[in-house]
């Protein structure tokens, strides 16, 4: 028989996800259908291979780092809650107007949380600092074989020089925010979900 995707998602689950992420009911069912179609093993969780099966993601230079962002520390599987929680970072900020709930704390798609998501793409060891090595790693992923080590090294040095205000030769999260304060993060790190 065909898949019964949405019948596996209970109303209570949908309500909880709604509260946590801010997605609407129809967006959640649609994203659950997508989650289910990616889940080739049909075990209610996605593995890294499931993500890599998406060709457009496999050819993205930062594909592996983006996939990593979905998986909590040391785990190989992400369930639907985790999937939605990560995607929630990319909800547009305007959509928050309807769900103003003062007790729920900072929403996942706030400017701060979007910047934190981008910061964590660099900061692989989660020590809240982007070291020269970590910056070089990301640069190498994005340029492939087209730029020499020396040139890449000097680009990394210059970037750290510009951002580093406390002289520890690495970029902390607050330094990261300061450098990017004029960037329209809300628009560049948001995806327009249709209802």
């Amino acid at each position, binding site marked *: *028989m*065909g898949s*019964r*995707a*949405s019948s596996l998602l209970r109303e209570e689950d949908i309500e909880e996800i709604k509260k946590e992420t801010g997605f609407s*009911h*129809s*967006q959640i*069912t*649609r*994203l659950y*259908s*997508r989650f289910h*179609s*990616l889940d080739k093993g049909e075990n209610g969780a996605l593995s890294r291979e499931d*993500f890599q*099966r*998406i*060709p*457009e*993601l*496999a*050819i*993205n*230079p*930062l*594909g592996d780092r*983006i996939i990593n962002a979905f998986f909590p520390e040391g785990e190989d599987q992400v369930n639907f809650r985790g999937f939605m929680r990560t*995607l929630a970072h*990319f909800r547009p900020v305007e959509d928050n107007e309807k769900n103003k709930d003062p007790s729920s704390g900072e929403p996942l798609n706030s400017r701060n949380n979007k910047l934190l998501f*981008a910061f964590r*793409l*660099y900061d692989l060891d989660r020590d809240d600092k982007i070291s020269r090595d970590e910056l070089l790693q990301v*640069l190498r992923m*994005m*340029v*492939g*074989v*087209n*730029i020499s080590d020396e*040139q890449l090294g*000097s*680009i990394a040095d210059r*970037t750290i020089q*510009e*951002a580093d205000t406390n002289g520890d030769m690495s*970029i902390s999260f607050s330094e*990261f925010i300061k*450098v990017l*304060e*004029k*960037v*329209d*993060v809300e628009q*560049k*790190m948001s*995806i*327009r*979900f*249709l209802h």
Partner: protein
Amino acid sequence: PCKDIEGSWWLANVLLGMWISVVLALTVLPAMFGLSLGFTDLYIKVLVKTLEWAALRIQRAQKVPAVPCHLPNGIIQKGDSSMEEEIMELRRMHPHPLTGGNFTLCDTFYFCKKGIESIVEDQVTQRFTSEELASWNLLTRTNNNFHYISMRVTIIWGLGVFIRYCILLPLRIILAATGLSWLVIGTTLVGILPNSNVKDRISDLLHITCYRICARGLSAKIHYHNKENHPKKGGICVANHTSPIDIVILANDGCYAMVGQVHGGLMGLIQRSMVRSCPHVWFERSEMKDRHAVAKRLRDHVADKTKQPILIFPEGTCINNTSVMMFKKGSFEIGKTIHPVAIKYDPQFGDAFWNSAKYSMVAYLLRMMTSWAIVCNVWYLPPMSQQDGEDAVNFANRVKSAIARQGGLVDLSWDGGLKRGKVKESYKEAQQKMYSSMIVGH
């Protein structure tokens, strides 16, 4: 009492025999002459009315407005600016002017957003599963998000199940079995005749009749458009591929020389007998690897103007009929006229896509025979040839676009082989190269 039982068995046998004969007479004779008795048309009309009624009732019963899972517009709205435009915009927002090496920490935003967008919705993975319907068509298999509606709809659905499984399925199996066995027996017999015009004409008639019987076995209603562009002898016919049934659909309106790999079992038997009555091109698995040998055999066949046009599916695999994927350039290097054909199935009556990862051939055929019907449109496009200075890849893409446009399908450059294989590293390398040129300003 014994005689009574014997008598009633005999009577049952006679009745069964009569019934089968009537059925065969009503289908075989019209099939030979290409006539239609109108049963299928009437059935389709009744079906359409019923499905419309069901759709209305479902709409009325839905408290939340029905949101199908795969809207034609998709889940998200993507921008269509290029990598360069997006990254330049990010750079403009950066406070410090950069000298000698353009990199900003926010460059990653572009790749990040593109990556997340492709996780939510991508152009490729959705092509390898069946198309989702906007409104339920009363088949259990497509019931993804439409729950219990009302007693009346459920009764009609139940009636549908009974009609499809208990009445239509046995009928269709008999017809398909008849069609296939006549094909095997008939072509073997025709093969005994000496080569002549008469033999060719008998062979053509036999092929068409058997394919028509098979089409009845699927309750197929096919609408052919632009018959003046029908592929001619000595030409190459290319079409988009959705299922093995494509062959039956096309062969109902003309004779083609099939191209394919030699199989074992029943398929192999059919292949061996078919080739006795008229030339088809069957390749051994080992031969397929040698592209030059393959091209030579096809070229030789096409050069012979007495042979039927060859039928090729350049995608190389079954796609779900919402898009046309990359055409392999092999068939376009032979250098003859290409006759493109677009096939579009109507998913309302039955899902024709063969998801070979999920269903075996037998399971697939059973699904086909328990659908409502197979309704499709076939468009014959005007012949196309390679232009001066155009290489095979561009020619293939030109033909692909023409077919996609005619069939209302999405034109993709992605390879259908991505169904099973990994994407080539060269695509990622191309992106890295483009980005590098933005950093060091080449």
